[in-house]
């Protein structure tokens, strides 16, 4: 085998120009995978973090049963003792922010026009940390000292034509089912970048929401936790589960992974596009290698005859050429890694601006992550495709008639 490996390496460098062209094609293919894969991962990351930070947080805690039945009877599944829980959760490692929400919905009216809204009663200070990506574009954030304030999504504000300082009336039903109204003043307008959210959502202070729904002051629907890093989600979840067991609490936990539906849709979509690209590159590599190996074998027909005359068996000839394909694959992978990483860094450094993606209102700057898993995948693809692609030419080489091969010029 050492002999065949030596022959493979030397033969690869025999026709330098052809080898370089083949390696260039393979390198570009692998680099395309690395760059596109890195881009896709940066999108995953962006969507994940924006979803977490503008909406769902890392971890949400509800009264047990809320996820399944809370939609129909939201006020039957309330957490009763938020202040005590907040105390305990705040002490857990990696937890940055603990805040509570109370969802409700109803109609919002200026007096002239009325439309449906989805609202959240929030703790202004807590929510400010959590909505890092929902930026105020007009007016101010909610504040505890301004209990009547409301902030609207930019789409909702635009539809109404309201601006900070304007009065609105919120109509909703209390826990018991009675109609109740709340007079509020627009304090600010925010934009999360996600159109569905910006068009329909508004926020008021938690005490106001509790009041209009006729709830106790400790009652909330969900507790939302923001951590120092997304990677710590599982660890913190385990700690909370332990806490729930120890105290015998009637609670359930959801993490961002369960809640960020759009994140999974984006992954699904880009995952498929990436698979198609991978397939295209594989086909490219296979054709390139098949062509190179077929030419190499044709040129070396007499050598094949010679080594077979000297007693090399057919499988030895196969090994010789498959190893050559493997060596080409490894070199192509190395070229691709170098080129891909350089391109990824360069494109990120240049900072290309892209228009808003579907369902979003904000454009973004192209970032290409250098992802070890993608690098490994690109390298593996080059090597495996090159090795497999050389199998057929190698098999053909080993089938030559020795006498005819020796006569070949």
């Amino acid at each position: 085998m050492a002999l065949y490996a030596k022959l493979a390496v030397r033969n690869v460098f025999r026709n330098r120009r052809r080898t370089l062209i083949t390696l260039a094609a393979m390198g570009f293919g692998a680099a395309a995978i690395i760059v596109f894969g890195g881009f896709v991962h940066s999108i995953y990351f962006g969507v994940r973090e924006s979803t977490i930070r503008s909406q769902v947080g890392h971890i949400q805690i509800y009264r047990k049963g809320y996820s399944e039945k809370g939609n129909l009877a939201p006020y039957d599944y309330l957490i009763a003792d938020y202040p005590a829980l907040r105390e305990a959760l705040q002490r857990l490692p990696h937890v940055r922010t603990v805040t509570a929400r109370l969802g409700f919905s109803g109609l919002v009216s200026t007096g002239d026009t009325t439309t449906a809204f989805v609202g959240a009663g929030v703790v202004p200070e807590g929510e400010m940390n959590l909505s890092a990506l929902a930026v105020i574009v007009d007016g101010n954030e909610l504040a505890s000292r301004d209990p009547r304030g409301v902030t609207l999504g930019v789409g909702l504000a635009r539809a109404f034509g309201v601006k900070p300082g304007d009065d609105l009336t919120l109509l909703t039903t209390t826990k018991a089912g009675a109609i109740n109204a709340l007079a509020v003043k627009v304090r600010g307008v925010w934009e999360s970048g996600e159109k569905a959210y910006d068009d329909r959502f508004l926020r008021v202070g938690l005490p106001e929401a509790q009041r209009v729904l006729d709830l106790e002051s400790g009652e909330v629907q969900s507790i939302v936790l923001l951590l120092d890093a997304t990677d710590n989600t599982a660890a913190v979840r385990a700690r909370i589960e332990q806490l729930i067991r120890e105290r015998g609490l009637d609670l359930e936990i959801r993490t961002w992974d369960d809640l960020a539906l759009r994140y999974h849709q984006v992954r699904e979509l880009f995952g498929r596009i990436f698979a198609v690209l991978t397939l295209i590159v594989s086909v490219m590599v296979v054709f390139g290698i098949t062509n190179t190996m077929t030419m190499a074998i044709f040129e070396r027909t007499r050598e094949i005859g010679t080594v077979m005359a000297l007693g090399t068996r057919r499988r030895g000839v196969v090994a010789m050429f498959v190893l050559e394909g493997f060596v080409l694959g490894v070199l192509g992978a190395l070229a691709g890694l170098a080129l891909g990483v350089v391109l990824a860094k360069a494109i990120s450094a240049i900072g290309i601006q892209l228009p808003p993606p579907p369902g979003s209102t904000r454009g973004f700057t192209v970032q290409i992550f250098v992802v070890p898993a993608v690098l490994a995948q690109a390298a593996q693809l080059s090597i495996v495709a090159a090795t497999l692609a050389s199998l057929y030419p190698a098999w053909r080489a080993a089938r030559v008639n020795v006498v005819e091969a020796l006569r070949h010029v």
Partner: protein
Amino acid sequence: MDDRVAVEHVSKTYRLGNVGVTALDDVSFSVATGEFVAIAGPSGSGKTTLLNLIGCLDTPTSGEIRIDGEAVSALSAGARADLRARKLGFVFQTFNLIPVLTAWENVEYPLLIHPREGRDRRARVAAALEQVGLRDRARHRPPELSGGQQQRVAIARALVGEPALVLADEPTANLDSATGRDIVELMRSLNRERRVTFVFSTHDPRIMSVADRLLEISDGRLR
């Protein structure tokens, strides 16, 4: 039996389209250990076909060939490859060294494809190169060697496995006459000193004259 090679009523017919072409027609002879046998005849007379058959590169249409008493025509392709590695050495008209390997590595090749235990490979490669007078060219690759030197390397490669028989198909045809004579003298001296059995084809009368025995072939038959 002392015969290295026994060729028994061997015929070889090729098909060219619908026509059968007889390249060899009922050829029989034997070669004893240590013999230096030339096969002579014009182009297309069947010399190369005969050497290919003895060299187990091809199989006869009828008849049998024995190498050291072993019948070869029924062997599988793999078994014939092993037999070639074990018992035969080849010298080609066009030298046929592997261009990406050095002289040393070319000579070493047969020992690597069919490893033999308990023998010092390096010593044998060195000895083979010494015998052909190219010890100092071991690190050179074929393109850096003259035709005569390349053919010497090829002879060292043929000898290194201590074969029962060395087959040489027109070994001097691509060399000038002086170099050709050197090559033949080298083969002759290896034959005399080391009792290596040689069977070679040629149409050069000066080379025929040094052979122990001359087998003349024309139109596929021995004369």
